[in-house]
């Protein structure tokens, strides 16, 4: 279809054994997760849980053994992610490191950076955030203004980042900063640089921001003359935009782009048996979940083959976000009376959290703009 390809992929041969291992672990670990924790899914932050996940080799599964990685396939990693998300595991403390920061450091980092950071991401010890948005720069990210000025031995940072998920609980943030002014407003993608910022460095103030559902999920970071040594530059100064956007297929295609609300569906089903509208509605939701899973697996397969399916990933995220975002309201609409208490606890929280699904990682409007370009419009 118009240059977009979604060839079917198989789950890897290791999948059944891996699933059995994961389910046994998750059943035990999940005994005390509240409906609210499950409703936050991959934004729920639990370092103890992440360390346990790391201990079992489920972080950095595809990375080289030299740095502690598992050297397993992308599709085995995919199976691990989908099993975690399907039960609403609080994977937030290692999610970003595993998905983006680790791969970025492996690809563009120095040998020293790899040796310092990768093993500690793999063990679940280090939590990463991504510092992108600013008060005046959201979808128009390249207009960002937080400065990193070159000084002897490093950079001096001044400015602000906002909406950085869980940064106040994390150790490091891979941050996109302006190291030189854009030569021209049309060339604003130039002069941007990625730095690894130690969130405990002097001059950093992080103010948590209460989200819609009442959690301190994100925050505002203020940089006041923060010094970052040259050794924490990622890749090449001035190439930050290309570096940051080259990871988008990884960021946008994963199962977290359609599965965020699935735990509500499975939790609600047993109390919907007598509801006349339930079979049809649940059938429609499962049909879509199954289809989105095949689309998402297809993109994972392309990543496995070393391709960069950024446009396919944008499309899967857009269709997936629509599904996962609508799900809490669709479940609610099936009850002719009040929802059971545990279902209500998850549904009401998730319905609020779901507003973020079509915002985080690229808004619906930005994604549809990418798809439109692929279609040959604009």
């Amino acid at each position, binding site marked *: *279809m118009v240059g977009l390809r979604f060839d*079917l992929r198989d789950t890897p041969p290791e999948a059944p054994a891996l699933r059995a291992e994961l389910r046994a672990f998750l059943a035990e670990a999940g005994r005390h997760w509240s409906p609210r924790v499950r409703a936050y899914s991959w934004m729920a932050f639990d370092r103890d849980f992440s360390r346990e996940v790391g201990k079992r080799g489920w972080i950095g599964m595809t990375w080289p053994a030299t740095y502690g990685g598992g050297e397993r396939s992308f599709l085995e990693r995919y199976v691990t992610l989908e099993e975690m998300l399907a039960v609403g595991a609080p994977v937030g403390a290692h999610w970003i490191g595993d998905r983006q920061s680790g791969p970025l450091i492996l690809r563009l980092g120095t040998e020293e950076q790899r040796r310092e950071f990768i093993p500690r991401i793999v063990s679940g010890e280090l939590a990463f955030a991504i510092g992108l948005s600013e008060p005046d720069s959201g979808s128009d990210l390249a207009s960002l203004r937080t400065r990193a000025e070159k000084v002897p031995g490093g950079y001096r940072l001044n400015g602000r980042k906002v909406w950085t998920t869980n940064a106040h609980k994390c150790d490091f943030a891979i941050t996109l900063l302006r190291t030189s002014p854009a030569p021209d407003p049309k060339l604003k993608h130039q002069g941007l640089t990625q730095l690894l910022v130690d969130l405990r460095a002097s001059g950093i103030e992080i103010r948590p921001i209460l989200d819609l559902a009442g959690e301190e999920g994100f925050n505002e970071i203020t940089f006041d003359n923060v010094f970052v040594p040259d050794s924490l530059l990622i890749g090449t100064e001035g190439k930050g935009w290309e570096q940051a956007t080259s990871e988008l297929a990884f960021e946008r295609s994963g199962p977290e782009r359609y599965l965020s609300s699935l735990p509500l569906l*499975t939790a609600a089903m047993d109390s919907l048996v007598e509801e006349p509208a339930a*079979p049809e509605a649940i059938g*429609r939701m499962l049909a879509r979940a199954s289809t989105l899973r095949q689309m998402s697996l297809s993109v994972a397969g392309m990543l496995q083959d070393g391709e960069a399916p950024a446009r396919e990933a944008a499309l899967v995220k857009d*269709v997936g976000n629509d599904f996962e975002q609508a799900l809490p309201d669709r479940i609610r609409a099936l009850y002719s009376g009040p929802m059971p208490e545990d279902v209500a606890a998850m549904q009401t929280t998730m319905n609020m959290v779901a507003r973020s699904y079509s915002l985080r990682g690229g808004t619906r409007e930005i994604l549809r703009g990418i*798809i439109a370009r692929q*279609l040959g*419009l604009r």
Partner: protein
Amino acid sequence: MGEMRDILLEQVERLLADQSGPETLRAVEAGVWPAALWAEVEALGLPLAMAPEEAGGVALGWDDAVAVWVALGRAGAPVPLAESMAAAAFAAAPGFLALAQPDGTALWGRAAAQVLAGDGRLHRAAFTPGKAQPSNEPWDRAALPGGEATLLAGALVNAAKMAGGLEAVLALSVDYANVRKQFGKPIGQFQAVSQQLSQAAGEVAAAGVAVANAGRAVARRGLAGAAFEIAAAKVITGEAVALVAAVAHQVHAAIGFTQDYHLHFTTRRLWAWRDAFGNERHWAQRIGHAALARGGAQAWPDLAAREDA
């Protein structure tokens, strides 16, 4: 397998491009059997392709057949080849084989040498002519044994045709949005238009994946073993039709609301095909009842296990 699919697809696509178009579709709606086109597909051995070699076929798999049916759907399915291929997968016989719904209705029943009925057997039957709504395709009725033997195959055939028709409607709409100018520029450059087409593209992609997934499942586990995937494909393609047809007509505006311009041939067929062999509600309820009986705790493991080795 891949090579055979490519060869067949190329043959079918070339044939449809050369010998089919709005005039063929208009004639079909007037009840004129597309004899020349049917002779061509028979000459290529397509109707019997899914039959075993000893019955004159090439044992074409359901996954490859689905790809051919998607190509047919892209052209508005001017000949009932998909139905005849699926019927021959049950019981091979010469000539056009119609595929009946459980109620005894069948596309082009009047032109069939034989019809595969709900009992899973071929019959010779006298059909009373009728028309499908709103496609006006010949949709004829006969007194036939009931049963659901053809239901899964017919649902897959129609889902595949829809996946193709949806692609065609999207492509037509994108082309139109790039050509039609208002306020001094192509309307596709307005976000109010392009965002609708992007959303439609998501539905078209989902429909294609759902149908390919169902074809693969049948190839691996047979029709009964792929009931979930077929049901999902019929639900997803039917849902896609609602949105994609709406966007296509909105983008085309008045010209798309006429019979002068050819968008209507495909959108009217899509609206008919989503009702054939069980609509979205029918198939969604089947999935839902089965899942509710299994229980919520089993829903994810069942879904995840579908294609695990």
